[in-house]
Each structure stands twice: as structure tokens, then as C-alpha cells.
């Protein structure tokens, strides 16, 4: 079920570095912000022919009129993005894909973000807080170090926040999955985004504890809208005649972990 999509000439409102190599970009994009769901993404277009393709980014924050992206400078597209300034125009295609489906009946929600996977979690946390003001929410964030624990201040008021770092510079010295492992609860709904190995561990913990788990995947994308079939990822084979791959952009980016990894 894909929601309405638009190509929107968004105006850059702010674009600032918030940690080494990590930037936050806010865009006036009422067409997209009005319909976006947590976990959905946009394809951001750069002018010129090189880089050629749009780049996918999760929606980090969403207000009535604007969306915010949290991105890491890794290559030529994100380098060009980091050099932009307000009030430049940016072409956005979105909102795309199927977002998280917060369980209404869940006794407790647990959001697990690692590294840049923290990005979509803020929108999700805000959404749950708003739509289910009384629901219990635990937020687990992980990063290599303190500086990579992004947007902590924004998360703090939204739930029970716990953090972990690989180098011990903040919170638990270890993996964010250990924080999850330590939770002792019967009914819980887990939402996760981050590096693939982390998400697989999270999904495995959930399987053992019988928690439902939704994971948000990345994949190399050309179109972001189901047309190129470039973003395939292998899924667990259920029945002999079933398709071998799902497509992150239109079947995801959020999947039930059980569909992917059994």
C-alpha cells in the first residue's frame, strides 16, 4: 500500500553539521510532510548529471510543513548536500515506501536505532507519543561513540531512553542489542533501523523472546518507486513457488523481520 507521491520543489530551511560528518537538513515540503508516515523515505535530487540519481533518505522529523533529514557525508551526493545553504531549492520525490506499522494493541513499544539508523526513529517516537499518549515507549540508541548518539535531547522526552556505545564513552559499553536483551517483558513490539548485523541480532533476540519485530532496510536504489527493480534483497523462502526477492523501495523499507529472516 503506497501512499500518494509527489515531486516537490522544497526550499531548504536549514542545513547544519551536528556531529563530525553528520548533518541535519530541514526542508519546507508541505506536500510531503502532510502525508508522510514514520519509516517512509524521500529521494533527494541534485542538480546536474553527476551525481545522476536521486539519493534515498529516511524522514527524520516531520512537522505540518517541513521534513528533516539526518545524513552522513559518505560520497559525492552527500558531499554536495552538505554544501547547500538556505534558501536553495531541492527536488524531493516522496513520501516513498511502507513505513513502520506501530502496533495499536502493543503494551509496549521499543525503538532500537544504531548509527544513522537513529534517523527514522525520531519521527516514529513522536508519532507513537502523539497517537498513543499512554503507551509505554523504550528507546535504545547505539553508536560507535558518544558523538554518534544523535538527537538524544529530542528522544529524551519521548520515552525511556537508554544508550550504548562501542567505546563506552556514553551509556553501556557494548552493543545496543545488549540493552534489548536485558529487557524483561512479555509483550513488546520492536522497531529497528541500523547496520544489517545489528538488525539481525535484534531480530534474533525478538524471535527468542516472541516479540514482533519490524526492521527498516537499505539497498542501492535507482528509482525509489518500484520501477527499476534495482533494490532487491533476498527474503526467507517460505513456499517453493514464492518470489526470491523483495524490493526495499516498494515492499519496504520496513519489513516484518520474520518475512526476511524467518
Amino acid at each position, binding site marked *: 500500500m503506497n501512499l*500518494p*507521491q*509527489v*515531486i516537490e520543489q522544497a526550499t531548504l530551511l536549514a542545513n547544519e553539521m551536528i556531529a563530525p560528518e553528520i548533518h541535519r537538513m530541514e526542508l519546507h515540503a508541505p506536500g510531503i510532510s502532510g502525508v508522510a508516515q514514520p519509516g517512509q523515505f524521500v529521494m533527494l*535530487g541534485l542538480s546536474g*548529471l*553527476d*551525481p*545522476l*540519481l*536521486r539519493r534515498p533518505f529516511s524522514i527524520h522529523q516531520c512537522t505540518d510543513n517541513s521534513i528533516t533529514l539526518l545524513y552522513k557525508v559518505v560520497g559525492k551526493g552527500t558531499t554536495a548536500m552538505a554544501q547547500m545553504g538556505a534558501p536553495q531549492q531541492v*527536488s524531493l*520525490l516522496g513520501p516513498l515506501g511502507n513505513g513502520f506499522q506501530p502496533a495499536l494493541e502493543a503494551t509496549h513499544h521499543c525503538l532500537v536505532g544504531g548509527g544513522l539508523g537513529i534517523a527514522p526513529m525520531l519521527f516514529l517516537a513522536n508519532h507513537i507519543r502523539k497517537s498513543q499518549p499512554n503507551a509505554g515507549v523504550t528507546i535504545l540508541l547505539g553508536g560507535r561513540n558518544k558523538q554518534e548518539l544523535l538527537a538524544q535531547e529530542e528522544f529524551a522526552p519521548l520515552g525511556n531512553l537508554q544508550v550504548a556505545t562501542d567505546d563506552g564513552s556514553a551509556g553501556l559499553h557494548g552493543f545496543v542489542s545488549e540493552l534489548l536483551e536485558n529487557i524483561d517483558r512479555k509483550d513488546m513490539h520492536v522497531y529497528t533501523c541500523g547496520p544489517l548485523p545489528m538488525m539481525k541480532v535484534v531480530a534474533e533476540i525478538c524471535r527468542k523472546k516472541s516479540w514482533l519485530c519490524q526492521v527498516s532496510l537499505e*539497498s*542501492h*536504489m*535507482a*528509482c*525509489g*518507486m*518500484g*520501477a*527499476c*527493480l*534495482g*533494490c*532487491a*534483497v*533476498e527474503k526467507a523462502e517460505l513456499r517453493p513457488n514464492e*518470489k*526470491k*526477492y523483495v524490493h526495499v523501495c516498494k515492499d519496504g523499507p520496513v519489513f516484518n523481520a520474520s518475512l526476511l529472516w524467518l
Partner: protein
Amino acid sequence: MAINLTVAIGDWQLKNPIMTASGTFGYGEEFSPFVKLSELGGIVVKGISLQPRDGNPPPRVVETACGMLNAIGLENVGLAAFIDQKIPMLAKTKADVVVNILGDSIEEYEEITAALDNEDVVKAIEVNISCPNVKKGGVAFGTNADMAAKVTDAVRRKTGKPIIIKLSPNVTDIVEIAKAVEGEGATAISLINTLLGMAIDIETRRPKLANIVGGLSGPAIKPLALRMVYQVASATNLPIIGIGGISSLEDVLEFIIAGATAIQIGTANFVNPALSGELVRGLENYLQNKGLTSVKQLAGSIIT
């Protein structure tokens, strides 16, 4: 003055020369938020094979300088599901549909063609003898003039619809192949499909595509595509559909001036999903501003 944008491919009258290329436009529906499909000259759907295919393992796409490599490997729903599920949906859009087909053998091409011959929504069949991303068939037919001729002849006998043969650029002499398919009754020729390329991840020392090699598309290949269109247009009498890196009105005009009857937008659909519709209007405005009344006045107007 009214501008005449129509062009003909055999009996098929296209509203205008702007089409979309196979594999870059899904089954059309994905683009309906951005383009009124019935306003385009035609849409070419993702290549269909007799049996459904899963396609190649990921990663399947990687960007290169002004271009991209893909190794989708012809993932598609297969002929039966296409007819059952996609044709009725396409009929509703009122778009002029071209079906791109691919077989592992001449018999498969025949069987698919015969099945599509019954479908009214299908205005023409584009025969892909140039896919670099599948092991059997595909490009093997497209790089050998005799084989290309045989496929053309076989398909020709199975349908009265226009047959567009889609050629591979990965050949020494594109004109030889074009003449071979012209001799066997092709209605038109479309070119080019992608060029075989590769990219390597220096950290892992692995190819960036799981399939090792893939097809290069996008603005990077436009000069090659334009040269081939010019060569084939000069050497054959068939209508040519120009494809390769087209991403602006200027690009469209270059191909038409070089001798293309129509053109297809490929990779550029990913960059701007609304492009094909914009180009229909852009072309009309351009002709108007230049005081021309028909796009045919431009076609093949190159001065050498």
C-alpha cells in the same frame, strides 16, 4: 497553428514521438502520479519472458560517472501473469502499450508473440535481442546478424502487430545487424540497449554488482547512441526509435535530427519521473516557437 506531433511505426500511429524505455518505467502504473500515461507516444513495459524470473542477486545497480550500471537480470512476472494481471490494468490507463519480450530460444520468442497478438492494448512488440544481463538468449541474438534475422523472421510470422527489434550496441557493426533485421520484415528498430560495463569496490576487491558485469545507461552513453541512430538511419529505410541517455528536450531534438522517428526515455525517468510528459509539451512548444507545424519536418534533418 496546430502542431502535428504524430509519427508512424508501421500501422501504429503514435500521438507523439515520446515513449518510455523498457525496464525504466515499470508497468506504467508506478508513474501515474507524475505522467498521464495516455498522453505519451507509447510506454514500453518491463521485458516479459515466458516463465516468471527472479532476476539476479543484489546489488543490482550502481552509479557511475553520468550513468549507472544495472544487472536486474530480467526479473519479471512472466507471460501468463502479465496477461492476467497487468494487461487489464494497462487497458484502463488508455496508454499505447508496447511489450518488450525476451526469450531463451526462438521458440520462446514465438510463443510470447503469439500470445500477445490477441491483446488489443498491445500496440507493438519490442523484441529484446540485446539484454546483457541474462546468460542465455538476449544479447547472443543481438550480436550476430544471422541470429537477429532469424528471431525477426520467426516473430514476424506470429503477429500482424508492428515488430520493433531492439538492438545491442555491443557490436562491431550496428548497420549490419540493422540491415539483417530489416531484410526479415522488422517494422522498426529501437536502439540502443545498454553497454556492458563493470565497477569494482576497491575496499572489498569485489565487483560492485553481484552479477560482476551490468548494462551501462544514462547520459554517459548518449554520444554512442546518437552515432548509432545516425548510422542506422542513414543505412536503412526503417523507422528508428532512439534510446540512450536522453534527459532533456535538447537530447530529444538531437536524436530526431539524427534520424529517429521516435525516442524512448530510460534512466532519466528515475531522476525525474515526470519527464516524459514534460517532454511532450516541451517538444510541442519548441516546434511552435520555431514556426514548424510538424515534428516530421525535423526528422532526419541533419546537415552534414
